[in-house]
C-alpha cells in the first residue's frame, strides 16, 4: 500500500479498558490485508500485546533507549502500518514524550500519520482528557467505545467533552462478547486470524490423537460461532475506520476484505 502510512496509537488512561484487545484487532486486520505491521508493546510490567505477537517490540518508556526504540522507529518505514499498545501504565509518559519531541510533526514529515485510538471509561474525567489530547495534538483521532465498559450514565450527558468526542467524525464501537468466550480469546496462544480460518465452515477439525494447533479447535460449534460472530463484525469495524481515516487523509485505501 503506497501513500501515507498510519501509526495506530491505541491508548487508554485506565486499566482494563481493552487497549490490547483493540490493538490486536488492528494488527490482525492489517495482517489479513497483506501488510506487515510493526508492533510495539509499551507495558514492560505486564506485557500482553507482545504475548500474542512475539515479533512485537517491548519498549520501556522510562528509559531513553526504550523511548528511542519506539519514537525513532515510528516515523520510519513509511509504507508499513504501525500499531502501539499504550496501556494505562505508560499513558502519561507516552503523551508527555509525544508532546516534548513534537512527534506528530516529525511523523508527518516522513509521510506517517499518527492516529490516536482513545478508549475512555464512562467517566467525565476520561472524556475531558480525551478532548484535551485531541485538541493538543491535532492528528487523526478516533473515539473507541468498548461495550465491555458498559454504557454512558445519565450524568455524563451534561459533560461537554462527552458530546464533543461523541460527535467526532471517526468513531468505532467494539461489540460485547460473553465473558467465557472472551476468556478463551484472551488465551495467549490464540491468533484471531488463525481462529477465523480454523473455525470457518468446512474446515477440518483435528483428527483423533492429533494435537490441535489452537486451544479453540476443540470448542463446541456453538462457542465457535459466538466468537466468530463477534470477531467478524469487530474486524469489519476496524476496516471501516481504517478506510475512513485513509479517505480523510486522501491516501489509498486498504484492499477491502470480506470478513
Amino acid at each position, binding site marked *: 500500500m503506497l501513500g501515507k502510512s498510519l501509526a495506530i496509537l491505541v491508548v487508554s488512561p485506565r486499566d482494563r479498558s481493552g487497549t490490547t484487545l483493540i490493538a490486536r484487532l488492528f494488527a490482525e486486520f492489517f495482517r489479513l490485508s497483506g501488510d506487515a505491521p510493526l508492533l510495539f508493546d509499551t507495558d514492560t510490567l505486564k506485557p500482553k500485546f507482545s504475548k500474542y505477537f512475539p515479533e512485537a517490540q517491548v519498549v520501556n518508556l522510562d528509559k*531513553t533507549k526504550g523511548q*528511542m526504540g519506539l*519514537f*525513532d522507529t515510528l*516515523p520510519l518505514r513509511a509504507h508499513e502500518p504501525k500499531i502501539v499498545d499504550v496501556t494505562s501504565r505508560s499513558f502519561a509518559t507516552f503523551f508527555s*514524550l509525544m508532546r*516534548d*519531541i513534537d*512527534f506528530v510533526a*516529525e511523523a508527518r514529515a516522513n509521510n506517517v500519520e499518527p492516529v490516536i485510538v482513545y478508549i475512555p471509561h464512562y467517566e467525565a474525567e476520561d472524556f475531558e482528557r480525551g478532548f484535551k489530547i485531541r485538541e493538543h495534538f491535532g492528528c487523526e483521532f478516533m473515539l473507541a467505545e468498548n461495550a465491555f465498559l458498559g454504557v454512558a450514565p445519565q450524568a455524563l450527558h451534561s459533560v461537554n467533552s462527552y458530546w464533543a468526542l461523541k460527535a467526532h467524525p471517526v468513531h468505532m464501537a467494539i461489540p460485547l462478547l460473553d465473558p467465557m468466550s472472551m476468556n478463551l480469546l484472551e488465551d495467549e496462544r490464540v491468533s484471531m486470524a488463525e481462529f477465523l480460518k480454523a473455525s470457518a465452515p468446512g474446515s477440518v477439525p483435528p483428527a483423533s490423537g492429533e494435537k490441535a494447533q489452537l486451544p479453540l479447535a476443540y470448542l463446541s460449534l456453538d462457542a465457535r460461532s459466538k466468537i466468530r460472530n463477534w470477531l467478524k463484525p469487530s474486524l469489519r469495524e476496524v476496516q471501516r475506520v481504517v478506510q475512513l481515516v485513509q479517505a480523510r487523509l486522501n491516501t489509498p485505501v486498504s484492499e477491502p476484505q470480506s470478513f
Partner: protein
Amino acid sequence: MAKEAKEAKKPEKPSSKQKPAVIIVGADKGGVGKTTVARTMLDYFAGKNVLTRAFDTESPRGTLKRFHPRVTEVVDLTQVADQMKVLDTLHSSEVKVSIIDVRAGLLSRTLKDMTDIGFFDAVKNGEFKFALFHVLGPSVASLSEIDDMLPYTENAEYYVVKNHINDTNFFEWDQETYNRYFKKSRRTANEITVPKLNEMAYEQVELAGVPFVSFGQNKTAKNQRADYSLVLRGYVRTWEKAIHEQYDDAGMMEWATDGAQSS
C-alpha cells in the same frame, strides 16, 4: 511568498544608534557549564535574528568555537592585543551584541583587567551596556563568589545562573542563604535556572559538534540534513526552549537591542 520568508529569516542590521552590549559568561569554578550557557545564548539571539559575535577565552583550543565556529573567535584576554580586538571594535563592529565566554577560574581576573582598561567607566558613562551571567556551582562555597562580583554589577544587568545540566541536580544552598548575599548591597539579580538535559542527548550533541538549535532541527554543521534521534532532538528542543523562555522573561532581547528588535 518564498522570497518573503527568506527575507524574514535574514538577520536585521542593528541601527547605528544601538548601544553595543557586552555579555560576559563566567564563574570562578570550573565545570559549572559556562560554555553551555553561552551556547544557549548564541542560539537565543540567532533565533531572534540578532547578529551576535562571541569570544572564547579558552585559548588556544576553544570549546565554544567548536560549536559556533562562524561567530566565535578564540582570544586570550590577558593579552593587550586580544583585549583591543574585543573592546576597541565594540563601536565599529556592525554586530552590536558580544558574548564573552570566560575561561574557568578567570572571571575575577578578567573583570579586574577590564576595570584597569576603563571598561567599567565606559559602561558608567553609557557607552556600552554590560551584563554578567554568573554561573554558580551547587556548593554553598560558590555563593561567596557573589560578593566578589557585586562591585562590577553597579551599572549592569546581573544574572545568577543555577546550572543543573552537569548532573548537579541538587543545590546545597537554599533561597534564604542566597538572598543574604544581596541584602547588604540592596541589589537583586535575575535568576536563570538551566534544567537538566537528558545525558544521552547531551552526549550526542557533543559528538555532533553543532549548536543545540541545529541538533534540534536535525542539521549538521554544514546545514545539511542529519540523522539524529527524534527523541534526543526533542529533549534538546524542549530543554533549550525552557531556557530561552527565561531569557525572554528576563527581558534580554529588549535589553540587548534597546527594544529596537523584539520577537
